[in-house]
């Protein structure tokens, strides 16, 4: 039993956890933040324990947004890039690319992954922004959800804040719970 080796393992475990935290903090600190609008979902899907399922308007995009028609069929999980432009207070998708497009002023690029789609006219995407963990018993919001997302240079989005009817989620849920 070697103390040096034991401490090395604990240091590695700690470094791994701190590394994960640092990576996420770095993403959250990205200078670019955008607001995404959520699309209505079946309330039965929304009520899932201690997290809220977020379904975005940019989660289902028309196939007409492809910049070049994809050759062959993409398998689920295939990474794609979505170019977003501001429309009012929200950002909306204007272009869908299989490869990283050249940067365009006023556009924000986020990376997503293809999901199964039952229609050839639509593309279903996942961004890693679909779950928002909340306090126990507050996973049943009533109102309009909007999501503030931090986007780094690599295009990896991360949830910064969720708003319910314009107020931070936790505060809005506390007010909803009060009689």
């Amino acid at each position: 039993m070697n103390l040096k080796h034991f401490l090395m393992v604990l240091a590695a475990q700690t470094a791994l956890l701190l590394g994960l935290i640092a990576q996420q903090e770095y993403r959250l600190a990205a200078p670019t933040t955008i607001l995404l609008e959520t699309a209505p979902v079946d309330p039965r899907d929304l009520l899932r324990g201690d997290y809220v399922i977020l379904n975005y308007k940019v989660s289902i995009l028309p196939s007409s947004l492809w910049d070049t028609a994809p050759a062959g069929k993409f398998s689920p999980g295939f990474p794609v890039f979505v170019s977003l432009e501001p429309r009012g207070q929200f950002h909306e998708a204007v272009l869908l690319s299989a490869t990283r497009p050249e940067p365009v002023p006023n556009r924000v690029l986020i990376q997503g992954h293809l999901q199964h789609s039952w229609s050839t006219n639509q593309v279903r995407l996942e961004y890693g922004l679909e779950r928002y963990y909340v306090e126990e018993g507050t996973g049943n919001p009533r109102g309009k959800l909007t999501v503030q997302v931090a986007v780094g240079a690599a295009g990896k989005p991360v949830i910064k804040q969720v708003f319910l009817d314009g107020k931070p989620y936790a505060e809005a849920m506390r007010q909803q719970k009060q009689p």
Partner: protein
Amino acid sequence: MNLHDIQRLHADGLIAPEQRDRIVAHYKLQDGPGRFIAIISAIGGLLVASGIILLISANWDAIPRGVKLLSGLALMLGAHVAGWWTRRRHPDFHKTAEAFHLVGSVLFLANIALIGQVYHLNSRPPNAILLWWLGIAPLAWILRSKPQYILTLTAVMVWLMMEFLHDKGWLHSRDGELALLFYPAIFTALYAAGVRMERSSARDFSSITRRYGLLGLSASLMPLLFGWHGGAQLASLVWSAYLPFAVLVVVGLGFALRGEAKLPLVWRGIWFGTLTFWLVLVGVICATGSDSRSWHWERNDWVAWMASIALFAHCLVMVNLGLLLGSRYLINLGLALLTFDVIIAYARLFGSMAVTGAMFIVSGIGLIVLGVVIEKRRRALLRALAERSNPTKL
């Protein structure tokens, strides 16, 4: 046998003081912490961890995320430091120390999950288990801890299962059917590794690895008893993925068993043949799958019957190996599987016996008699084993 038992024998006048002292000195018996303290420590540790987790969840939004994350980290490190300190300062309380380290390792997983929650991460769930496994794997070796080793093996198996079953898993196929194809070979590989470890510096973990491997293999063969069939899609994977892996496992098993000096050569061959047979049978079942569905059950067909007969023979071989190696575990596992096999075969005949109610009565009585006979035989075998002087840990 502990010190308390010997003291009771002496108090009841069954052994003389000199005999008591000689037994205590010979077996190095001491008034150790015992199982009770270990259980209490483990339950206490779990309660403390659960309480803290509940406290955090009840005040989720009120606690800044930095505090949440640092608390999780501090708890994990605290548990390990407490384990190390107990181990060093109070060697008699080694089970308490083990419990602290176990809580620390479980808290490492809890911390990974906490980071996932705090930052709303939606990546592949198997990644969390993979990170956990990689993080705790060295601890078993450094601490020479069997509970840590069992936790590590369990982490690997849970990770593999998630890779097979989760739709984002690297090994996922339709309905996760690859799991049923690969698990017997994976557990056979684990068993072979355990046999090989007996002649390595990891000898302490050999017995656990073999037991884990055999238990896992037994569990992974159960679907065959119910007439499991792979679909046509799986058939194509048998040649490209399963066959090379299975060949590698069989070669490794052969090398491992070759060094099993406690077994006569002929029994090494029989045991090797028995284990290899299952890998071949699983491969054949999947390679001949032509159904467009994914895996499915066909209750009364050749797979179920062949598996039943083969498992019966497998159990008899295992019991005999138990006698040769002096292993209670092999005898118990062999007889438990044998009983299960007979019950499943009986249940499979339900449909055909339904027309004559008398068959239920006759076969029911037969089953009870079989159970009694098997239990009596098991006890006789274990008694015979206890009288021998060279029992093994397996």
